[in-house]
């Protein structure tokens, strides 16, 4: 029952939408019927256009996430562990964090043109901050009692990091990852919509030129599905690596 319930509301919305289109309440050039959207999706999938575009978008998203997340993770760890490094860099990073990264789009286009680097840069920048902030917070909130215990039991610095600091910071890091994934898709949609020659965002913008509302709506749904997929993977990882934590253990 609990598996079906979350899908009940989307299903009802879909039915109402279909019914609205059938009876002419919703104009087809405003919002095409779900069946029309499905048909558009089917055509895109058959022609292979959909898959190449998903591939291009996913590659950008993952590369940007890996770069931004990687740097954020390492800086978060360093600043969590060393107060010297924190004093040096943290206030600068906090200043940068408060600039909406999408506001940099004009500058980024000037720097990189509308090439791949521009989009990857924007995604990396967007993903960097949530992962940085949460990693640092995670390291800071590791129980000092456990660190003291590790020292008293003769753990080396490396063992202390791997057995105490990292697992202790992990719940917080996962919060950053899930938040970062959301920002990753958001940034990519915006970047691809403004300037691109491939990808889901480009597919949507291209369809707009030809008034293919069904393709536009379908592209939006693809984004929703990809976002949900990424979040589900993150949740699965969370549940397997944090099985020790009663909060994450299966209810």
């Amino acid at each position, binding site marked *: 029952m609990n598996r079906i319930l979350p899908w009940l509301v989307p299903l009802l919305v879909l039915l109402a939408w279909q019914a609205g289109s059938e009876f002419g309440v919703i104009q087809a050039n405003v919002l095409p019927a779900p069946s029309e959207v499905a048909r558009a999706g089917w055509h895109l999938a058959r022609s292979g256009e959909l898959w190449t575009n998903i591939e291009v978008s996913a590659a950008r998203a993952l590369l940007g996430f890996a770069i931004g997340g990687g740097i954020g993770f390492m800086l978060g760890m360093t600043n969590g562990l060393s107060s010297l490094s924190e004093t040096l860099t943290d206030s600068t990073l906090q200043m940068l964090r408060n600039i909406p990264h999408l506001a940099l789009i004009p500058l980024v286009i000037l720097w990189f043109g509308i090439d791949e680097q521009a989009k990857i840069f924007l995604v990396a920048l967007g993903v960097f901050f949530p992962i940085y902030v949460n990693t640092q917070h995670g390291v800071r909130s590791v129980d000092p009692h456990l660190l003291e215990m590790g020292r*008293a039991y003769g753990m080396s610095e490396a063992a202390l990091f791997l057995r105490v600091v990292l697992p202790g910071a992990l719940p917080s890091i996962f919060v950053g990852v899930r938040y970062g994934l959301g920002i990753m898709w958001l940034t990519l949609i915006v970047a691809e919509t403004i300037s691109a020659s491939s990808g889901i965002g480009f597919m949507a913008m291209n369809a707009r030129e030809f008034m293919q509302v069904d393709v536009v709506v379908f592209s939006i749904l693809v984004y929703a599905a990809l976002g949900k997929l990424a979040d589900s993977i993150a949740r699965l990882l969370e549940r397997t690596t944090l099985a020790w934590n*009663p909060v994450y253990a299966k209810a």
Partner: protein
Amino acid sequence: MNVNILDHAADTVTRATSPGADTETRAIPPGADAVTRASSPSSAAVTRTSSPDADAVSRASTSGADAVTRASSPGAAIAPPASSPGAAVTLRGVTKSFAEHRVLHGIDLDIEAGTFVAIVGRSGCGKSTLLRLLSGLDQPTDGSIAVDRHTQGWQDIVRLMFQEPRLLPWQRVTNNVEVGLTHARDKRDRRQQAEDALAQVGLAGRGHNWPAVLSGGQKQRVALARALVSHPRLLLLDEPLGALDALTRIEMQDLVANVWQDKGFTAVVVTHDVSEAVALADRVLVLEDGRVAMDVPVDLPRTRRRGAAEASEIEGALLRRLLQRQ
């Protein structure tokens, strides 16, 4: 050092002054020892430091109620490794200051190998600080500490048990116990030792559990196993039972006492509970304003019965001293 010796403790002076006599009694055959003990508790002062085997014998003949707690701690069944008698501890003029505040004032102290010493005192008297110095977590501002005549590098033979269990919540119980074996290389050997230690504290078969599912008392048992797994020669306990309920606490006291008798390490426990100190220790030190204010031998037979008259007498004397300056 201001040392008060109580009247009734006079008959125990022999122990402190003539270690030779002490060693002699070890030679008494187990059976004979058990008999002496059962018949005349007053002579226990002489036979107290008997061999572990003898203890096992006398323990087997104790009352049924005692046997229940024992059943959960099969420690006595495991033979102690030949190389782990206790370490002797010597403190000379040990002083510890934090900024301007002086916590310990030149403490001189000798702890005989294999004895169980309790340190009691009011909050802030410096007892936990003293324990941290012994564990090597902190360095004394002045003075020297020697464990087995080593003034340095003795951290490996010392283990500290904290007030909280301090288990790593993301590691299963066995892995938590293996934390005590950071230097052991062979993985299978580590696992085996960890499981033996768990069996010793009565938690055999719980190794695969996460710490989160254990009760407070069980967690503290795991912490004890972690401290014991490397066969320390000096075990330090920092109010390890403070957070447990009264019954679990008594059970744990028995467990600690049994393991100590079985293994023969030196033990130093810091506690604010005078009756716990008297139940566990051979010698109770009262710490007051960073000085040893009282040094009381407790020569009562093992296993000790709670509420025995002699014990209450010592407890009363200690409490009078502790409450004197309020």
